[in-house]
């Protein structure tokens, strides 16, 4: 019997691979092998989005009895076409870690003790009410996540902004996507990419700006490699600050000095203009020119404020502005040879080549994150390579629902599900849908994430509820924020699935259900909303985050706003939420359609998904012929004059190295889930510091030896990795942040982009010593 079952599973495995191959390489033949529909062998397959990155692969989870036992890529989903990566496959094992939090815990006399969930929720509601009474409504805060299901974020926003009346709602996507948002808003007037993953099969050239897709978006990277195999002229250019697995697979790897991507992007525009590669027909009809403030600061001080001011200029002003950005000048700043800058410009400038630019944290976690987003858009706008198949400037999200829950639901201090709190019409709409008095919604944003934790430290915030995220590992300049959260008179609630450094500081821990243990939705990088049903039962006393918030809201007296029953609350909330987006610019698919399909892209109008926005051929919201950038009042996309400005902190004689931080293939963010998956943990058991071999030799550091890394804020000792999977240039080190034993964020700096307020985790100054 065992043998039969095993043979059967192998047959399914072969079948899945052959199906994926047939989707990626139409007409591929494996000789005698042909894919066949098979009986299920006692395994029931259910679709769900993967919860381990913003790609949004659809998985089929195999369930035997009450247990998830297998995963295959969903061949019906256009995102992954039957593939998944090592994290996706192992995602079901995170359900079964031994130390799963299954009961509520409350701190009593300094010790965490188990209590019934209802008692813990009572305490949360009471504490919030007491805090509001004593310290005012802006003393309570919610800090959520791009791993929140859409309904989690929606009810959090409704409770805090609509009912309590505070804009103290933020999410960890501030740390990963905020610059992409402000980049989109400043250039197009509306958030989220105009293109879609189908651009991958249509482009001739891919330029990846400071990201490592081979490890962070492996399925999309596979699609890029497949495109290059199918169409041999296709080129992949890796433009980055360190050599990674992506660099090795690329046709060209070009390294630049940290922060100087700003200068290189301007030099590419300079070359495009100098060589006459501007698409005048497009520029004249669809683009306008603007400049903003300069020398805008870095936000390292409390209460930092910045507001940009746009001034309209013309093409000649752009040309004049770019005169300092000759490839030769920029070579001196960036270290990129002028000939490589010209090569990049020629790729973008060639009218016969379709170009897609991809980026993630390298451009977004940047003290000029909004600017570098603007500048890459400038390149695509000058050449007219945008909003059409294969021509796409595209910021990929890190988290499964950074788009769906944070950018679309608007779980940031200034946002509402439609629009911003500052706009009276948007407040009116929210008040109507939420059934609250419009005066409840405060027109003033309060704290963005870094400032929110500063406010907790200062005592301006006294109560914080943290759901599905681990800020006591991820906040930059971490020691200040951990010490702040632990001060007397602070009350911290943490909804979690495993113990973390964040649950260590909690006064209440609420046991959360994982994504396939409850019904929910994610929204991926390409505007695709994905539904999953509850696939396995919730263990112990775990509850969904949505239900936790609803219960607390009701206990606080907001029954009218949260009337839904346990049987239908997810569908009911979806039906309320989509009223916010009921226009051809952003209409979402109905619940029934989402239930049936492996994801649906918005705007979803008259039963059709929109693949390329702002292009009249594909986007029903366009009112003009060919292109219509309807997010801006002038119906044009804005080219911005944005200069190169140095980072907040650069290496000097005392701290002579750049510190760059990031992720690795095997681990998801802070590793609280993936480190509990034995295979992933064994494959990458602990963090390390990547050092350039020349630097290591000069300092007598050998592979695996202990190295002390120190900055002006903190230090830690970890093992050296030389010639590992990544290789930084001389003068830079790289540390993955997945390992809570090595809190690298005690070393990083809490400088941020003054427009997006997103911190820069890629650049600060450190020194190294043999330990």
């Amino acid at each position, binding site marked *: 019997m065992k043998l039969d079952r*095993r043979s059967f*599973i*192998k047959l*399914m*495995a*072969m079948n*899945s*691979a*052959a*199906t*994926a*191959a047939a989707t*990626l*390489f139409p*007409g*591929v*033949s*494996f*000789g005698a*092998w042909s894919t066949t529909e098979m009986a299920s062998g006692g395994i029931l397959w259910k679709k769900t989005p993967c919860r381990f990155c913003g790609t949004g692969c659809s998985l089929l989870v*195999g369930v*035997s009895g009450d*247990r998830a*036992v*297998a*995963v*295959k*890529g969903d061949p019906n989903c256009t995102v992954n076409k*039957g*593939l*998944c*990566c*090592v994290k*996706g*496959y*192992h995602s079901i*094992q995170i359900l079964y870690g031994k130390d799963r939090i299954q009961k509520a815990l409350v701190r009593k006399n300094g010790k965490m003790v188990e209590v019934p969930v209802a008692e813990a929720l009572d305490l949360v509601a009471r504490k919030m009410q007491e805090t509001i009474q004593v310290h005012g409504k802006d003393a309570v805060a919610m800090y959520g996540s791009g791993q929140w299901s859409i309904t989690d974020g929606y009810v959090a926003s409704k409770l805090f902004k609509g009912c309590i009346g505070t804009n103290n709602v933020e999410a960890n996507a501030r740390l990963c996507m905020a610059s992409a948002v402000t980049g989109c808003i400043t250039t197009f007037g509306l958030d989220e990419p105009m293109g879609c993953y189908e651009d991958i099969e249509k482009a001739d050239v891919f330029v990846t700006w400071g990201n490592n897709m*081979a490890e962070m978006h*492996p*399925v999309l*990277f*596979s699609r890029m*490699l497949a495109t290059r*195999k199918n169409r041999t002229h296709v080129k992949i250019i890796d433009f980055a600050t360190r050599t990674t697995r992506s660099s090795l*697979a690329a046709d060209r790897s070009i390294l630049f000095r940290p922060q100087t991507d700003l200068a290189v992007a301007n030099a590419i525009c300079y070359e495009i203009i100098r060589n006459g590669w501007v698409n005048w027909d497009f520029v004249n009809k669809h683009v306008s020119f603007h400049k903003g403030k300069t020398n805008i600061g870095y936000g390292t001080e409390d209460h930092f404020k910045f507001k940009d001011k746009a001034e309209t200029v013309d093409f000649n002003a752009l040309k004049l502005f770019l005169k300092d950005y000759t490839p030769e000048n920029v070579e001196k700043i960036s270290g990129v040879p002028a000939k490589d800058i010209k090569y990049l410009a020629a790729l973008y400038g060639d009218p016969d080549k379709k170009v897609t630019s991809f980026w993630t944290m390298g451009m977004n976690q940047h003290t000029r994150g909004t600017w570098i987003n603007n500048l890459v858009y400038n390149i695509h706008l000058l050449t007219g390579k945008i909003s059409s198949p294969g021509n796409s400037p595209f910021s990929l999200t890190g988290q499964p629902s950074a788009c769906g829950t944070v950018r679309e639901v608007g779980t940031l201090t200034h946002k509402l599900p439609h629009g911003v709190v500052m706009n009276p019409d948007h407040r009116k709409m929210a008040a109507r849908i939420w059934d609250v008095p419009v005066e409840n919604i405060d027109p003033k944003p309060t704290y963005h994430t870094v400032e929110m934790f500063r406010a907790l430290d200062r005592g301006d915030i006294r109560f914080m509820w943290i759901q599905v995220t681990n800020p006591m590992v991820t906040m930059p300049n971490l020691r200040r924020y951990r010490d702040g959260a632990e001060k007397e008179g602070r009350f911290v609630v943490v909804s979690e699935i495993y113990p973390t450094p964040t649950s260590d500081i909690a006064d209440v821990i609420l046991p959360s259900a994982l994504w396939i243990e409850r019904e929910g939705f994610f929204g991926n990088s390409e505007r695709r909303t994905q539904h999953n049903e509850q696939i396995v039962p919730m263990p112990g006393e775990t509850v969904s985050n949505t239900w936790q918030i609803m219960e607390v809201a009701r206990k606080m007296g907001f029954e009218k706003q949260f009337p839904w029953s346990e049987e239908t609350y997810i569908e009911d909330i979806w039906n309320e939420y989509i009223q916010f987006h009921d226009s051809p610019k952003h209409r979402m698919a109905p619940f029934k359609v989402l239930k049936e399909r492996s994801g649906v892209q918005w705007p979803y109008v008259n039963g059709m998904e929109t693949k390329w926005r702002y292009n009249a051929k594909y986007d029903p919201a366009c009112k003009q012929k060919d292109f219509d950038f309807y997010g801006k009042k002038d119906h044009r996309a804005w080219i911005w004059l944005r200069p190169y400005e140095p980072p907040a902190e650069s290496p000097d004689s005392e701290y002579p190295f750049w510190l760059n931080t990031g992720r690795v293939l095997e681990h998801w963010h802070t590793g609280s889930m993936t480190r509990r998956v*034995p*295979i992933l943990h*064994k*494959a990458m058991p602990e963090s390390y510091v990547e050092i350039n071999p020349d630097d290591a030799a000069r300092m007598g550091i050998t592979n695996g030896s202990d190295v002390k890394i120190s900055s002006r804020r903190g230090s830690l000792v970890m093992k050296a990795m030389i010639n590992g999977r990544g290789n930084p240039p001389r003068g830079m080190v790289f540390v993955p942040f997945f390992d809570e034993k090595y809190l690298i964020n005690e070393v990083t700096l809490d400088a941020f982009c003054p427009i997006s307020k997103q911190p820069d985790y890629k650049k600060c100054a450190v020194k190294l010593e043999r330990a």
Partner: protein
Amino acid sequence: MPVFSYLAYPEQGAKEQLLKDLSELRYCEITPAQNEELLILLTDTPDEDSEKQLQKKLKALDSLQSLGMAFGHMDD
């Protein structure tokens, strides 16, 4: 224990070499595409340690450019 299937992409012009390299590894079954530079790799290891060893060996293959996973199963 674990069963996985992958699409295995060879380095430029190294399909035959990759086929040979993979055939020499224990726990691997390979089905080459007839008309594409592509192979299906099916791995069936008896336990986690062998799986880990195999992963190491796969990573060390010069003829292998990358693997795209399509299926995974772990017995309870």
